[in-house]
C-alpha cells in the first residue's frame, strides 16, 4: 500500500489555554485526494497552518517523504514542496495578480524583477485553470470578486512544482461552474501524482472527489477512512459526534459518559491509520474542553501573528 508523503503523529497545538489540536495523526498520500472534514472550529485550518509552518507545532512528529523534518516557518514548508491555499486566501490587496502569485518567489534577471516572464507564466497557469473571468493579470487583487480571488490563490499554489497541495475550503466562494473546475483540478493534481488535501464542508464534493477522508472532532482525529468504506450518513455522524459505529473516538474522548474501558475497534480497510487515530485511555482526561471562541482569549494569539 502507498506510503504517506506527509505524516503527522501525535501533534498537539495550543493557543494559550485553548488546546486546539490534541494528539492528532494525519497523513497525505501521493496520487490521492485526502479530504479533511470536521465542524466549524474543529481545528482543520489550524492543522493546515501547522503543516504550513505558520504555527509551529507544540509536540509531535512531522515526517515528509519518510524523513522527520522541522517546519518552523512558511519557507520550510514551501522548500519541501508544500503549497497551501489558506481559508483567508492570504492575498495582498494592493498588489496585482502576478505579484501575488509570485510573492516571496519572484523571478529576477540580475537585480531587477523579471516582470515580463512572471506575467507570461502567470497567464499560462491561469489559462491552464481555464480562467476566463479575469480580464488582466495586471489587475489589482482588491478589484477582484471573491471567486476570482480564490482562483488567484489556487493558481498561486499550482504554479510551483509542488508535491503536496492543501486547499482550505477552496470552493466556498465559487459558483457552480468554477466549483466543478476546482474539483476537476483537484482530481487532475492527484492523478499527476501529487498529494492533495481538500478541506470542505460540502459532503457531496468530498464524496465525489476524495480517495480518503479524515474527520476531525473537537481537535481530535476521529477517523481516517477510505472513501469506499464510508457513506454520507456516517461521515456526518463522525463530524457531528466524533463516532460512527465501530469508527471514531472512544466515548470518553468525545466527552460522553460511557464505559470507561470501551476500546474502540479498529475498522475499515486501513487498520494502521485507525489504530493511530484511536487511543484509549487518553491522558487528557475524560472531558474534552470545547475549543469554542468563548474559551479562546484573543490575547493569546499575539505571538503568532505579525504585528499589524
Amino acid at each position, binding site marked *: 500500500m502507498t506510503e504517506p508523503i506527509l505524516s503527522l503523529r501525535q501533534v498537539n497545538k495550543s493557543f494559550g489555554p485553548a488546546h486546539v489540536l490534541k494528539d492528532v495523526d494525519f497523513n497525505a498520500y501521493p496520487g490521492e485526494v485526502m479530504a479533511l472534514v470536521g465542524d466549524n472550529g474543529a481545528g482543520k485550518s489550524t492543522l493546515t497552518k501547522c503543516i504550513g509552518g505558520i504555527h509551529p507545532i507544540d509536540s509531535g512528529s512531522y515526517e515528509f517523504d519518510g524523513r522527520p523534518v522541522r517546519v518552523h516557518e512558511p519557507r520550510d514548508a514551501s522548500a519541501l514542496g508544500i503549497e497551501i491555499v489558506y481559508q483567508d486566501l492570504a492575498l495582498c490587496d*494592493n498588489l496585482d495578480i502576478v505579484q501575488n502569485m509570485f510573492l516571496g*518567489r519572484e523571478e529576477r534577471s540580475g537585480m531587477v524583477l523579471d516582470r515580463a516572464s512572471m506575467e507570461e507564466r502567470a497567464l499560462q497557469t491561469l489559462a491552464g485553470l481555464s480562467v476566463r473571468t479575469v480580464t488582466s493579470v495586471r489587475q489589482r487583487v482588491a478589484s477582484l470578486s471573491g471567486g476570482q480571488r480564490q482562483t488567484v490563490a489556487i493558481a498561486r499554489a499550482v504554479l510551483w512544482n509542488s508535491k503536496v497541495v492543501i486547499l482550505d475550503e477552496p470552493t466556498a466562494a465559487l459558483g457552480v461552474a468554477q466549483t466543478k473546475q476546482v474539483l476537476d483540478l483537484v482530481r487532475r493534481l492527484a492523478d499527476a501524482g501529487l498529494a492533495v488535501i481538500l478541506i470542505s464542508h460540502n459532503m457531496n464534493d468530498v464524496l465525489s472527489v476524495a480517495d480518503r477522508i479524515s474527520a476531525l472532532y473537537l481537535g481530535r482525529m476521529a477517523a481516517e477512512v477510505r472513501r469506499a468504506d464510508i457513506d454520507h450518513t456516517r461521515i456526518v455522524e463522525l463530524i457531528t459526534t466524533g463516532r460512527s459505529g465501530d469508527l471514531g473516538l472512544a466515548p470518553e474522548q468525545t466527552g460522553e459518559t460511557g464505559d470507561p474501558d470501551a476500546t474502540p475497534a479498529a475498522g475499515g480497510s486501513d487498520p494502521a491509520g485507525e489504530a493511530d487515530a484511536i487511543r484509549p485511555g487518553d491522558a487528557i482526561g475524560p472531558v474534552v474542553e470545547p475549543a469554542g471562541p468563548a474559551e479562546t482569549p484573543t490575547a493569546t494569539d499575539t505571538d503568532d501573528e505579525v504585528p499589524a
Partner: protein
Amino acid sequence: MTSVTPEAPQLDGPAEKPAVGGPRRSPADELKGHLQAYTARVRGGDMGSLPAALGLVVLCAVFGTLRPAFLTAGNFANLFTQGAVITTIAMGLIFVLLLGEIDLSAGFASGVAGAVLAVTLTKHGWPLPVALAATIVTGVVIGLVLGTLVARVGIPSFVVTLGGFLAFQGVVLIIIGQGGNIPITNETVLAIQNNNLSPALGWVLFALVAAGYAATRVLVARSRRRKGLDTEPLVVSAVKVAGVVAITAAAVAVLNEERSRNVMVVSLKGVPIVVPVIVVLLALGTFVLGYTRYGLHIYAVGGNAEAARRAGIKVARIRTSVFVICSTMAAVAGIFAASRANSVDPNAGGSNTLLYAVGAAVIGGTSLFGGRGRIVDAVVGGAVVAVIDNGMGLLGYSSGVKFVVTGLVLVVAAGVDALSRRRAAASGA
C-alpha cells in the same frame, strides 16, 4: 499606484480572448482599454499624484497673478532649495508610510545628523568624506534603533518615534548648546544649496536624464512586446515621455536665466546643485520600490503583513529596514539643511520640518494606511508645500498663517486619502 510596472494596469479586452498568444488588438482599441483602466483606477480611489499636480498648477497661477515676483527665475530657484530638505525627508518617510507606520522623529533625526556634520567638520576639522560618513552613519544607527524597537520589540511606531522626536531634539541641543550655532565653512557642503551648475552642464545632465528616462520606457515596453504581453499604447508612452521631457527642459531653461540683481557684482544662473542630487535620489528610490524584490516586499508587507509572512517574507527585517532608510534620508536632508543655512543651530530639523515632510508625502498621494505610494509623490507633494510656504511668504503672511494653512492642507490631503480608501472599499477596486 503600486504596480511594479510604471504603466497603468490594462484591461485585457473581451474575456473570451485566450490568455496567451492572442491576436494583437488595434492601436485604437488598446488606447481605449488603457484609458478605461485609468478611469477605473481613479474612480476606485487611486489618483496617485494627479490631485497634487493639478493643485500645483492652480497654486502657481494664483500666486503668480497676485505677486508677479513669484514667477521670477530667482524665486523659482528658491523653491528648489527650499523644497530640497522636506522633499528628501519625505522620500525616506514614504518607505515608512508604505508599511502604514510613521516616523515623527525624522525632522530631528536630520537635525542630529546636521549637528554631527557641523561638529566633526568645523569643531574637529575632520576631512569632508569622514565627516559625511559620520553623518550618514548617524542616520543609519538612529534608524536601526527605531526600527528594532518597532519591529522586534513591538512598540507602536507612533510612540517610539514620538519619543525619538523629543530625545533627538534634546541631542541637538546638547551637541550645539543652548543658543549656540556652529557655522559650516566647508566649500563643498556649502556648494550643494548655494552654487549652481554651469548652464552648459545643466543641459548635458538634462540630456542624460531625458535619454535615460525614454530609454528605460522603451526597453521595458520592448521586452514586454517580445513576450506578447500587454503594453502601454505607444501614444500614451510618447505623451508621457514628451511631457516629462518638456517640463524638465522648461525648468532647466528658466534656471539657466540670469537671476542676479546686479550682474556686474556676481552672476547667478544655472541649475542649483541640489537639484541633480534630488533627481538621483528620486531615480534610486523609484528603482528600489518599483523594480526590485525588496521594494515589492515593502508593498506586500504594507498591504497584508500576514500574507507576506506566509509567503516567506521576513517581515520584521523589512519593517526595520524602512526605518533605517527613513533616518538615513533624514541625515542626507540634514546635510542639505546645513548647507542652506550655512550653519547648524539647536532648532535644526525642528519647527515645521517634519510636518511639512509628512504633508509632502501625503499630498503627493502616498497613503497613511500603508501599501500605496511612490517616491515621486515626495517631489510633487514637496513642490506643493514649498510653493504654499514661498507664495504666502511673498504675499506677506506671517508664519502663524502659513502654519495654519499648511496644517489644513495636510489634513485635507489625509482626508482625501481616507475617503479614497473608503471609496475603494465600496467600489471593490
